[in-house]
């Protein structure tokens, strides 16, 4: 939350429409994302009720568990879902690029593409994560054998959910969070968690404004929740009688059909909204650093996919080294993601300017060929004076980079009222005179920031086998256990 976003929200209230808080799209959008809307049975940790999914908005697939408490029906559903997800994963691989070998000469590959799953909200991610946990350890042989696709589904869902933890990753996106990254509404974050209400502010139906569309969206009878929980009155008045009739009939097809119809009625409005939300996001130009972050997603996908056959299912809990590395990675991703977004998007950079960590204004003086001759060899050190109205909170000597060309580095020499004098230190070429057009000229508008991308180096962590005794020593290797295969899923 910042004053800029708060202001955007006030403007949203005043205008009755959501207001932009980004000028470019900060996430990757695949051409054929797999949209998934999972529903679960209320009161249960991971009892799936239904999922509507597909890559074609005109042809959703509806998977339903007519009696969510029945183990066989549930595993049957899991197997069907698995086929859909694995099919998508395989279809979205594309060709394999061979990269330069790594420093230690290892071969490196990267798939050209990667799968992408779109879900409505945070709750859906939590549910997919639990679904992953409850299926990835299932055994495909022995007395409790399940369809081989079931544990595969578990491992893939776990991978998607883990990637979702990483700032800037786009393989599993939640619509509410992604939309909120680009628009501010006249309601609180709590209400924005309702996809229909959020979309009501951003894209109200004909003849409605944001508040009236959001109010309509809060009536669960006309606007079913986006899941994973269904509305209690739907459960009590529609679903429960339908499930009871299914039980009573001994699993009769038409009783199942009635449940499917009831569940579909709760999913279709969200399905349509999800695709409409994707339209809106797609209409935004992609941020400059989005492909670079998507490359990281493709790397992770390539690695996971290539190692899939050889690897055990992901551990229930991370061991010490893995947990430390993961935390470090997440923090680093967060840092660079925020920095990259600011460079991509002047509206995000405005946050830094408001905080005084960056400033923008008009160049008033420029000495492009100034040399610093205090050392043995003269160094190219142009001076640029900038007039700014921003509340600069930088110390003299602070290092800054140009927002439009992060390669151009400088140092704050003095700040005098609204005038900032910079000495440029790098990014102008190797000669004693700068490359043409690099040093800003009087009359030009520029923005410099003190926050740079990728400011952290990678840290070293011990190998798994070398976990120090203070952290419990090396963890045991994974052994498939009967306990995992038989774990009740009720």
């Amino acid at each position, binding site marked *: 939350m910042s004053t800029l976003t708060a202001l955007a929200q006030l403007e949203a209230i005043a205008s009755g429409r959501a207001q932009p808080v980004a000028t470019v799209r900060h996430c990757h959008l695949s051409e054929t994302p797999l949209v998934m809307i999972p529903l679960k049975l209320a009161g249960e940790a991971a009892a799936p009720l239904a999922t509507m999914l597909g890559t074609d908005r005109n042809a959703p697939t509806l998977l339903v568990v007519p009696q969510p408490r029945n183990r066989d029906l549930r595993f049957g559903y899991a197997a069907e879902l698995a086929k859909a997800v694995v099919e998508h994963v395989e279809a979205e691989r594309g060709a394999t690029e061979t990269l330069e070998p790594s420093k230690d000469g290892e071969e490196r590959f990267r798939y050209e593409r990667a799968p992408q799953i779109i879900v409505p909200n945070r709750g859906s991610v939590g549910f997919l994560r639990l679904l992953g946990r409850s299926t990835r350890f299932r055994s495909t042989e022995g007395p409790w054998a399940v369809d081989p696709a079931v544990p595969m589904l578990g491992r893939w869902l776990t991978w998607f959910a883990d990637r979702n933890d990483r700032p800037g990753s786009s393989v599993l996106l939640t619509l509410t969070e992604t939309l909120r990254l680009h628009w501010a509404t006249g309601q609180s974050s709590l209400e924005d968690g309702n996809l229909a209400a959020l979309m009501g502010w951003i894209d109200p139906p004909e003849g409605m404004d944001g508040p009236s569309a959001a109010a309509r969206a809060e009536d669960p009878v006309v606007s079913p929740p986006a899941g994973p929980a269904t509305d209690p009155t*739907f459960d009590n008045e*529609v679903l429960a009688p339908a499930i009871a009739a299914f039980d*009573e009939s001994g699993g009769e097809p038409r009783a199942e059909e009635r449940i499917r119809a009831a569940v579909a009625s709760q999913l279709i409005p969200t399905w349509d909204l999800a695709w409409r939300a994707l339209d809106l996001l797609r209409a935004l130009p992609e941020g400059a650093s989005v492909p670079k972050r998507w490359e990281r997603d493709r790397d992770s996908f390539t690695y996971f996919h290539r190692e899939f056959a050889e690897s055990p299912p992901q551990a229930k809990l991370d061991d010490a080294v893995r947990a430390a590395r993961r935390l470090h990675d997440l923090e680093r991703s967060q840092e660079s993601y925020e920095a990259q977004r600011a460079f991509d998007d002047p509206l995000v950079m405005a946050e830094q300017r408001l905080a005084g960590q960056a400033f923008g204004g008009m160049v008033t003086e420029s000495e492009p060929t100034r040399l610093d001759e205090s050392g043995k060899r003269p160094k190219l050190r142009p001076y640029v004076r900038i007039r700014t109205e921003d509340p600069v909170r930088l110390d003299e000597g602070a290092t800054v980079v140009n927002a439009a060309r992060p390669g151009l580095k400088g140092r704050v020499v003095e700040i005098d009222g609204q005038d900032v004098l910079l000495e440029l230190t790098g990014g102008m070429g190797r000669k004693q005179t700068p490359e043409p057009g690099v040093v800003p000229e009087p009359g030009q508008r520029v923005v410099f920031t003190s926050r740079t991308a990728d400011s952290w180096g990678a840290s070293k962590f011990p190998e798994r086998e070398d976990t120090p005794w203070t952290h419990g020593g090396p963890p045991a290797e994974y052994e498939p256990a009967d306990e995992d295969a038989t774990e009740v899923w009720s």
Partner: protein
Amino acid sequence: MSGSPGSSPDVLEERIAELRAAVRRAAAGGDREAARSLRTELRRAEQAWDEAVLGGDPVMDSPTPAQARRDVGGVARGLVPVREQVHQALTLLGVPAAPKLIGAVHGAFFPGEIPATRLTSLRRDEERSFRSAPYARPYYLCAALTADLLAPARGLLTVSTWPLRQRIVGPLSARVDFLTAAIRVAERAKGTDTGRDAGVQRLLWRFAATIPGATGGTVGTDGAVEPAVVAEAARAELAVHRDADGRDRAAAARRAADALDDASLLFGGGLRVLPRRTATGDGPGAGLGTGDNTTTGAGESPGDTTNRRRR
């Protein structure tokens, strides 16, 4: 207004959607009357849709498996009345028991199922019968009494012909009765050689899982629980609690016999007749028997108090 069989599916669908919305709004708004009548209308419309779209009345066409099962159950229930079934199970157990355990025991050892819905009203029916014609039946299914207040214990059933002390529950009795039940079920399984039946195994597991030593290291190669081991483990723990529990029950039984009339002895006397406690002198409980708060209780249906909603 209800969907007549002649209406077109489109009209019916619209009608169903409208009714569903109306029912949900009525339920959310707390208007139970409206919700109930709307529900009836909705069911009618849904049925009409079924007939119009899916064709035919499935109930008429052919009996579904569940219905077939129910018919079998009906026959079994026809042979043995519910109170008889409960009596059978309680006699096997020999201790006050909750409906769930009674149902499980009956299901494991006797033919037919006890319909759960019938159990909730059973105690009330028995009390009514006793009060209108005392001792007209050879036995009544009645309440267990709490040792301190001689009030009906929630959710427990007993048999009127049992000695009074067997029908009283003190603080240790729940455990003692659980262990006793485990022993009797295990003995029965051994005696009738039904220990491997699925229903009996489930029941034995339920006991064994929470009795120390009842499963440990003794589980057979097929994962089955051994009745003899369950019985032995239960006896070992029972020995720890039995004497203290017996003293509590005997003392309470003496008090009850002195203080309660016949109906109260069977179905719970409530507080009106609670004698002054001597053990704790004028502790807070002592005032209960004479205070103003004690006018209720005797006639109150114990079944009502178990009907609690979750908050």
